[in-house]
Structures are given as C-alpha cells and as structure tokens.
C-alpha cells in the first residue's frame, strides 16, 4: 500500500503547517512517510507545493503520480491536475474550480468560519483527506494537542471532525506498523548530528536552503549549552568558526550557493593552519543567485578544488536523513582526527525532504577530539606544526597550559608557526599537510551497491540520488534488466574498490546526476580512467524521481 498526496497553494496559505501536521499524524499511525517541498523564492504569492508519500513499507523518494491533490489555489489545477491518477481525488475549497468528476468540493472556509476561526479551514481539508483514505481519526488529537494551546487545538479538532464527516471513504488503508521511527528532514538530521557530535559553536549567515540547520541548532542553544552566531556575512561566519576551532571548541558552519563561494578563501586558511573544520554546503542551482529554493548537485567540481593553492580536504555527500545524521558526527570526528577540512554536501531536495527513518542510535556515537594535554607533550620543545611521520602534530588547547603559547598563521610557516619563505620548509610543510589525503584512504566508506549481483548496466550516482536510484533499480529489475547502482557518499578522496570491481564486468556505465556536466563522472575519469558511456543529467532545479530515472534509462540506455 502506497499513497501519494500533493498539497498546492500560494506562499502564506499555511501549507507548511498543514503538511507538517498531516505527516506527523500519518507517521504516528505507523506509516513510513516521505515528503518533499517545491517552493518559490518569495514570501507571499506564487505557487508552492508539498508532496507527501506514505506507505506500510519504507519510502525513499518522491513520485509524480498522485492519489490525492489538495488544492488551495487555482494554480494547483493548472500545474498538477495531469498528474492525478484515474481513480484519484481532487479535494478543494469552493473557491477553486475544476470541472472533473474526480473533484470533491468542500466549503472549507465556510465551515471554518462557522467554527469561529477562519484559519482552521485547512484542518477541515485534513479531516476529509483522512476519511477519503479510509483511516480512523486516531493520533489526531494528540498531534493537535502538542502543536497548539487548548483553545486553538479544540477549534482544530472540531474542524477536523467536520471535514472527516463531510466525505465518504474512497481508498482502503492498511494499519501502519512502523515502530521506533522518527520523521525528520535532511537539514534537521545534520543539525541533530552536529549537536550529538559535540558542536559547541555554529556560525552562519542566513541563506536558503541551508538556513534551517542554523535554526534548529539555535533552538537548542541554552538547553545544549552551545552558541550559534548569525554572522554579518559568510566570510565572517567561516572565519569565526575557524577562530573558535583554533581556540579548542568543535565548530561547524553551513551555507549554500554564493555563500559557499564567499567562503572559499577561508577554506585555504583552515587548510594551512591545520584547524579542524566542518562546512556543510546545501546545494542549490547557480550560477550566482540562480534558483535559490530549488535543488541541484552542481557544486561538486567546485568544492573539490575550491580555494587557491592546494589543501587536503575530504568531501562527503549525504544520502538520506539517516546518513545525514551519522555522517555529520563522523565528519566532525574525522576533522578533529586529521586536523583538517571536511565538507558535507547536501542539497535542497534532501534538506527539505522529510522522511520516516529508524530512530537514531546515540549509544554507539562517540566524540573523539584528539586533543593533547600537558602530559602528552614536551612542554619545552612543543611545536604546533612539528613535522611528524604521519603529518599530524599533537594539538593542545591554547591558554590552558602555563608557559605555552600557540600561533597559527595563514602564511607558509615554520614548525613553530612563524612566517617563513624557506624553500625546504615550504616543501616539508606542504607534504606534511597533503599526507592526510593518504591517511584518509584508510577511512573511506565504499559506495552503496544495490541491484543485480552480476549487472550488465551500472548506474552511478551520489548523495541525495540514493532514494531515486534505489527505487528505479528495483523497477528496472522487475522488468528483468540486469541493473545495479553504486551510490557514493564519500566522494573525495574517491573510494575506488567497488567501482573498479563492477566496471570490469558491466557493459554500460551510466552516471545519474543532478547537474549539467556530469561532475561525478568527470572525477571518476580523472581518478580512475573509467568512463561513463551514458549519462542521465537533470538541471532544471527539480529532483529526478524513481520513475523518471526508470523511463529515461529505458529510453536512452537500454
């Protein structure tokens, strides 16, 4: 059993609240929920929509075929009616007109006014939706009660009831059975990972779609005893984070698009000063301002070489909310272990997509700071940038050890941290820093593989393409195709074992990416010489979904 609902309207109509509540009710009823947002870069007006997909089985991505459309504005008809299934339902208020026998019109606003709160008109629709789906009204009250004060909650309960009884059931729904799950989006998962992973200081500048990481961490500032600083610009944000990390706390910053571009100089600062730093880049389509509220995976090539000169860096892309949580914790630990820059790549699709996932396991997480104390070092001869065999020098917290001062420098520096122009020292320090790239190879996680054991066609993707590829692979396998998919999380340095292994036996390799030039395929060619003969690329700001991948593979590849 799997249903797909779309809620459409203009900014300011309360669709966000509507969908958050509906998702929560469905989740509490034990369903696996997946919802994604499509909104325009404006505060009022325009047309936004949210799609909620739910099932008794886990759901990994969104789909374009709809069972129910809830239309808060006429644009919903214009833009989405063609996606409604034959037996689907179009639910709307009297103000929206669609001459179609699938339409159910409810006087939502009128009912809401009768209750005495025009604002609860959406809740009338929500009641109707649950009834149409053939569901009971269980869990509704508790969700409303946690959301609102008593009075508001009562009005909404009333509105829900009125809507529920206004319509007949159209679908049958099995009981949901999911237990010990949470409903979380990609950015929230990164934020929760950051908090769990011991981030004490987070600095950022508001920039869609990365802002909600800052918002969530900030909401826990007092409770978790950490500090979030809204900087005057992205350059300040990253330099603050570097200053705080230098001083000994775990720090992180996050941004998107042009904000990341502004941070590029400071990436080099973190690199040359060997200061641990995690930067989350929630990608959106560019260039420049581009499409601020939409999705793309188009910053990979940029991030691999961003900042002048050469620095060691690790780049990992998150695949779903669960991955986002655990990888953020891992990134923080790796940054401290190797005193280096780790960049987490997310994108707007995953940032804003909410998904039911297993509860996170906090028990096995650890915070590994790798900080030396006075007893670990030789106080007399301590040098912050001493050349060691591994390239990693013990790092102490400044100000804590009497008689010991630490200096970090953005110029090329000696082992003591002082400016140098010596050719020999330059070479030594450059090699010291770059050695991390070899050390990192020991840490790498190979891409996920799913599909045929002996595939003829290998699909390659990364990050948020995980969900779509997973479902698409299943669909293609059902059609009898020998297909498998490799989805990269760790991207740089590039893990190559599985790639080399599968590329030997397959006939065709296809990269599936959300960008114009096939950025992962370029990296793979550069690092391994393996060539993706075909590619499925999309760069219109909307995420590829399973059926789209499936049909494009059928048309363009198989």
């Amino acid at each position, binding site marked *: 059993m799997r249903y797909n609902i779309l809620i459409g309207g203009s900014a300011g109509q309360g669709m966000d609240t509507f969908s958050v509540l509906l998702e929560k009710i469905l989740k509490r009823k034990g369903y696996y929920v997946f919802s994604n947002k499509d909104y325009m870069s404006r505060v009022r007006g325009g047309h936004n929509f949210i799609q909620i997909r739910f099932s008794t089985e886990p759901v990994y991505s969104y789909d374009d075929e709809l069972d129910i459309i809830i239309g808060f504005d006429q644009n919903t008809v214009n833009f989405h009616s063609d996606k409604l299934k034959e037996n689907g339902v179009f639910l709307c208020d009297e103000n929206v007109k669609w001459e179609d026998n699938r339409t159910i019109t409810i006087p939502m606003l009128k009912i809401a006014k009768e209750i005495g709160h025009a604002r609860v008109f959406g809740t009338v629709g929500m009641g109707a939706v649950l009834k149409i789906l053939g569901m009971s009204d269980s869990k509704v009250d508790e969700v409303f009660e946690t959301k609102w004060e008593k009075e508001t909650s009562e009005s909404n309960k009333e509105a829900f009831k009125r809507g529920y009884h206004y319509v007949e059931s159209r679908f049958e729904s099995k009981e949901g059975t999911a237990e010990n799950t949470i409903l979380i989006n990609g950015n929230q998962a990164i934020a929760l990972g950051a908090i769990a992973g011991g981030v004490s200081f987070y600095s950022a500048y508001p920039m869609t779609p990365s802002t909600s990481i800052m918002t969530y961490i900030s909401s826990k*500032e007092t409770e978790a005893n950490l500090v979030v600083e809204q900087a005057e610009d992205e350059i300040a944000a990253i330099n603050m984070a570097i200053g*705080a990390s230098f*001083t000994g*706390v775990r720090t992180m910053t996050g941004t998107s698009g042009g904000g990341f571009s502004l941070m590029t100089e*400071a990436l080099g600062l973190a690199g040359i000063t060997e200061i641990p730093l995690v930067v989350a880049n929630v990608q959106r389509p560019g260039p420049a301002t581009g499409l601020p509220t939409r999705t793309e995976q188009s910053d990979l090539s940029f991030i691999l070489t961003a900042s002048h000169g050469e620095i060691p860096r690790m780049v990992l892309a998150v695949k779903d909310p669960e991955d986002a949580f655990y990888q953020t914790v891992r990134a923080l630990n790796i940054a401290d272990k190797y005193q280096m820059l780790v960049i987490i790549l997310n994108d707007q699709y995953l940032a804003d997509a909410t998904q039911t996932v297993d509860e996170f396991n*906090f028990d096995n997480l650890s915070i590994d700071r790798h900080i030396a104390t006075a007893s670990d070092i030789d106080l007399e001869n301590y040098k912050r940038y001493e050349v060691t065999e591994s390239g990693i020098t013990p790092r102490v917290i400044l100000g804590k050890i009497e008689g010991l001062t630490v200096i*970090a420098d953005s110029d090329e520096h000696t082992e003591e941290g002082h400016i140098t122009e010596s050719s020999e020292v330059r070479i030594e320090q450059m090699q010291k820093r770059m050695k991390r790239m070899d050390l990192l190879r020991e840490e790498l996680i190979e891409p996920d593989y799913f599909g045929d054991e002996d595939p003829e066609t290998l699909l390659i993707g990364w990050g948020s393409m995980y969900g779509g590829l997973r479902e698409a692979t299943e669909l293609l396998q059902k059609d009898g195709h020998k297909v498998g998919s490799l989805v990269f999380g760790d991207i740089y340095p590039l893990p190559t074992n599985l790639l080399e292994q599968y590329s030997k036996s397959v006939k065709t390799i296809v990269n599936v990416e959300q960008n114009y030039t096939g950025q992962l395929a370029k990296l793979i060619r550069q690092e391994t010489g393996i060539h993706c003969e075909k590619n499925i690329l999309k760069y219109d700001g909307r995420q590829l979904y399973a059926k789209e991948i499936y049909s494009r593979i059928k048309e363009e590849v198989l």
Partner: protein
Amino acid sequence: MATDIKLFNSNDENAWCPGCGNFGILNSLKKAFSELDLLPHQILISSGIGQAAKTPHYINVNGFNGLHGRSLPPALGAKIANKDLKILVTSGDGDTYGEGGNHFIHNIRRNLDITHLVHDNQIYGLTKGQGSPTTAKGQVTTMQLDGVRVDPFNPLATAITMGATFVARSFSGDVNHLAHLIQEGMKHEGYALIDILQPCVTFNKVNTFKWYKDRIYKLDENYDPTNKMEAYKKANEWGDEGIPIGILYRNEDATSFVDRIPHLRDGKPLVDREWKPLDAKKFMEDFR
C-alpha cells in the same frame, strides 16, 4: 604587581623597517601586558594581513595570523570559545577599514570584550604604498600619482555613531600613553577601539613622525569621555587644527557580547563544556 616583561619577547626575526611605528606599538603591548600582571598563555592576538598584522609573531602570546581583512571574526570565535582569554586584535587601516569594513561595523554592534588596535599609518605598506582608507584626499602615493580621489574614512566618528563603547586614539611614538590606553581598553568590559597614529617611514612621506608630533594633543582631565556628542566633535578634529589623543568616548554601562548570552555568561568557558552524544538523545522527541 607586574609580570616580567621579558616573558613577552619573541625570538622570531622581525621584518619591519627600522624606525617603523609598529615597534612603539609592540613595546606598548608588552608593557601593558606586564603591568596588567598577565602571562603569555592567557592572551590571544588575532590579526589579518599587512605589516601590522605580523605583530603576533613578534610577541610571545597566543597568535592567530589569519586572512587579509579578517582579523575580527576569528577573535569573535575565540572569545566565544574561551571567554577567559584576553583577546586583542592588531591590524592595519587597510585591513580593518577597507577589506574588513563589514566586520568592523558589525563587531561594534556586538560589543565583544576585545581590544582592537588599528595601526593607522594612512597608507598600504606591504603592497608598497597605495592609498589606504585613511589616506588624505589629494595625497600623492606610489599609485595615485595625481592624488587620492576619495575622502578618507573617519574610524572614530564611525565607531561613536555606531555605538562603540570605548573609542580612543593614541600615537605610536608615545609608548607610555599607548600602553596606558591598551590597559584601559583591556579593562573595559566590551569592545575597545584604539586607532593608533603611526608613521610609515617608507611609503608615507606626508604623515611623518614629525607631522603627527606637531599636531597631536592629549585630552586632559577636564574632558568628559562619557559625553557622546562631545566625543563625536573630538573625533572630527583633524589636521592642522590639532588631533586629540586619549579616550574620546567610554560607556561602561553596556553589556558585553558574552554577557548577553546567559548560559555563556553564567557557565564555564565553552571550551570546557562537557557533552556526550547521549545528551542529545532527548532532542529526538521533536521528530516523533
């Protein structure tokens, strides 16, 4: 009580020109630290890029010599991370008022408890003599051969207007005066800006040691540094009419940045925060 001033000596070779005003500033810093009874590990100096920004190398305290124009943000991060550190910023006029102009403005709003020394020689030194944000209009430089076309930035008037809580000016040629101001700035619980007039012996042939010496005068006991309007007037005195040095404006009533965050104010420094991943488990309730 004073700590041994020699503790602050660095053995890094100095790259400043002989006669550079930076030496006076360096000596004032050491004197101030010693007289405040501080030890090297308790202090952090953050800087950007330029000749002034090399200061952290020539004094034995913790140092963060970061990017051009970015001396303030790391200082903010460091202060939040460890509120017990005494933090100073040393950078030039180009670094602070030009490249780092946005940070300058917004850190005034924060009233962060740091002491900001701007080595103001009214010229770009390290890049060999172009006009800086404080170079006089019309002054001929190695690049602006027909004179600088734009008006100079007035840092003190800007700071006072923006609500800075400690605004001062000193002269690199008067170590005692500057050392005293640095101490006052460090005692001030909030952001302390000290713009330091400083000759550039190589590239600024106008604003020489003598030029400053002939024009500066010290604000006396009769001057009331809590009077903002008076301070604004003083900040606009410049050139042949005389240049006031001393504390132009001081407001001890404002809350410093760290104290605006209750859990940071009342708790241990963030660097000593105790935290386990399990402590975050409760936040999962937000997603049930």
